[in-house]
């Protein structure tokens, strides 16, 4: 793994000023945004990159030979290279642009899964998956007659690997898991699981929707075959993300969608496919948001993942302390050292919606519900939790306001 950078102070209060949304008020109060796990806010640098494309070099890519088309193509492919370096991929050929994590996983389940998974084969997931890393595999298993297995979680919300050998046994084709839970914040030992899955000949897919923004990822260190992420969870716009795939696997896969640009030659009798990764990019891609994603990656890398991770840990520790002082709160998941910037909690038997509504009136935006992880909530024995999640624009002072709001909810709804 990478070594820690020398101690460097990052001024997170100054970072917050880059985000125009914090200039407005909610219910007359400053917006305290604690829902970055759902989507992050956007700095002005990202918004400028988006607008610059539309204002100055808006043209389709890989087609025109005029100046702005060349510029758009060059910049689009530069972002692909930027993502390859961000993930430590071996080549930019291993990066496919998609709408985000969900589409990336569906690309694998359709293009790799349909070809390689058959009757009686086993797909291994975990009990803490987001629906985006569960439903596509349920659909594939139903279509092919394959079986799903799940790595269970322990009482602390960590994966219980004591039975992993047994789970990996049999006609295992694929293991797909979240690097970091979107509810509990748990950071999973992906490298170890990938090593043991590979020993059984399985392909390993990683959902990095949460881990890439919060921890940074290194696909070679993780040892995964595929990795999916979304731009909008790391300061980028919605509708753009990517899939990393090992070149040999992508080369052997059929296309996901048919259309323009993904072909080499088209005759009425049939077509041949473009090279990897372009054979997976049918139709006009989301060019503008790709440019903005490039700016988001620059922004995040300028702060540095070590600093982001340390900042998240400080906020999680402080949240745990402040909420822990309120009788009746229960925090789910492992210790702050073992998780990213997410804290899911319940308060007595007060419904998460009611807590979130009280917080909303304090200007605090949190998520209330099952966070697209219904099976996990069933395992935790609660219908819904309230989730506070953090990113680079959050400050410890936000958490004081959060805790005050939670106390207010307790007072209002105590029965």
């Amino acid at each position, binding site marked *: 793994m990478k070594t820690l950078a020398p101690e460097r102070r990052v001024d997170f209060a100054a970072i917050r000023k880059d985000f125009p949304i914090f200039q407005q008020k909610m219910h007359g109060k400053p917006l305290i945004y604690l829902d970055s796990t759902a989507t992050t806010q956007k700095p002005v640098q990202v918004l400028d990159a988006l607008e610059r494309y539309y204002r100055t070099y808006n043209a389709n890519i890989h087609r025109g030979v005029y100046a702005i088309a060349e510029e758009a193509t060059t910049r689009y492919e530069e972002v692909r290279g930027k993502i390859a370096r961000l993930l430590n991929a071996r080549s930019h050929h291993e990066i496919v642009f998609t709408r985000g994590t969900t589409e990336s996983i569906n690309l694998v389940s359709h293009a790799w899964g349909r070809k390689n998974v058959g009757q009686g084969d086993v797909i291994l997931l975990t009990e803490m998956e987001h629906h985006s890393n569960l439903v596509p595999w349920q659909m594939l298993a139903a279509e092919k007659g394959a079986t799903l297995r799940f790595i269970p979680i322990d009482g602390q919300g960590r994966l219980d690997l004591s039975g992993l050998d047994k789970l990996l046994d049999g006609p295992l084709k694929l293991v797909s898991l979240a690097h970091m839970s979107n509810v509990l914040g748990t950071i999973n030992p992906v490298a170890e699981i990938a090593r043991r899955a590979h020993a059984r000949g399985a392909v390993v897919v990683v959902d990095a929707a949460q881990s890439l923004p919060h921890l940074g990822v290194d696909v070679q260190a993780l040892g995964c075959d595929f990795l999916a992420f979304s731009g909008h969870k790391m300061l980028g716009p919605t509708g753009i993300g990517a899939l990393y795939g090992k070149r040999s696997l992508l080369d052997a896969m059929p296309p996901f969608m048919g259309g323009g640009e993904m072909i080499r030659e088209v005759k009425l009798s049939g077509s041949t496919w473009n090279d990897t990764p372009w054979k997976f990019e049918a139709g006009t891609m989301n060019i503008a948001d790709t440019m903005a994603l490039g700016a988001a990656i620059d922004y995040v890398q300028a702060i540095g993942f070590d600093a982001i991770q340390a900042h998240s840990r400080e906020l999680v520790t402080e949240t745990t302390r402040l909420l822990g002082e309120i009788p009746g709160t229960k925090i789910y998941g492992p210790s702050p050292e073992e998780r990213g910037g997410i804290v899911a909690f319940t308060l007595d038997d007060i*419904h*998460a*919606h*009611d807590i979130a*509504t*009280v917080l909303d*009136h304090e200007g605090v935006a949190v998520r*209330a*519900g*099952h966070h697209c992880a*219904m099976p996990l*909530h069933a395992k935790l024995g609660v*219908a*819904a939790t309230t989730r506070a999640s953090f990113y680079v624009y959050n400050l410890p002072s936000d958490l004081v306001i959060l805790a005050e709001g939670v106390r207010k909810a307790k007072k*209002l*709804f105590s*029965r």
Partner: protein
Amino acid sequence: MSLDDFYRQTILDHYQNPRNWGTLENPDISAQDANPLCGDEIRVDLKIKDDHVEAVRFSGKGCSISRAAASMLSEAVEGKTLDEVKQINRDDVLDMLGIELGPVRLKCALLALKTLKVGVYGVQQSWPGEEEDE
């Protein structure tokens, strides 16, 4: 709308002391439904005599809005004929609650009504109000 207006006293009262809360033994009509967005679940039991609602009970789990709506609705249907119960619509429920709701909390507010309609019609309905959302 201020927090005090949103969680006005009648809503908190119905939440903290829900009327007709529980289940009935041998109900003539019983229906359950859930809000997949938040995991809320509601069950309604009805005792019918001479085509009138003789007794009604709601049970389940949900937020203050969904529970208060069920409680208020239960008072509204007591003694009504089944035809009258069928006439109750989403605006009636929103009038009872007396607050403005966004699209997410609207589903909380209407879960009890939806469950009641499933019961009295005997079939799964679309979300009450969906047809008016166009």
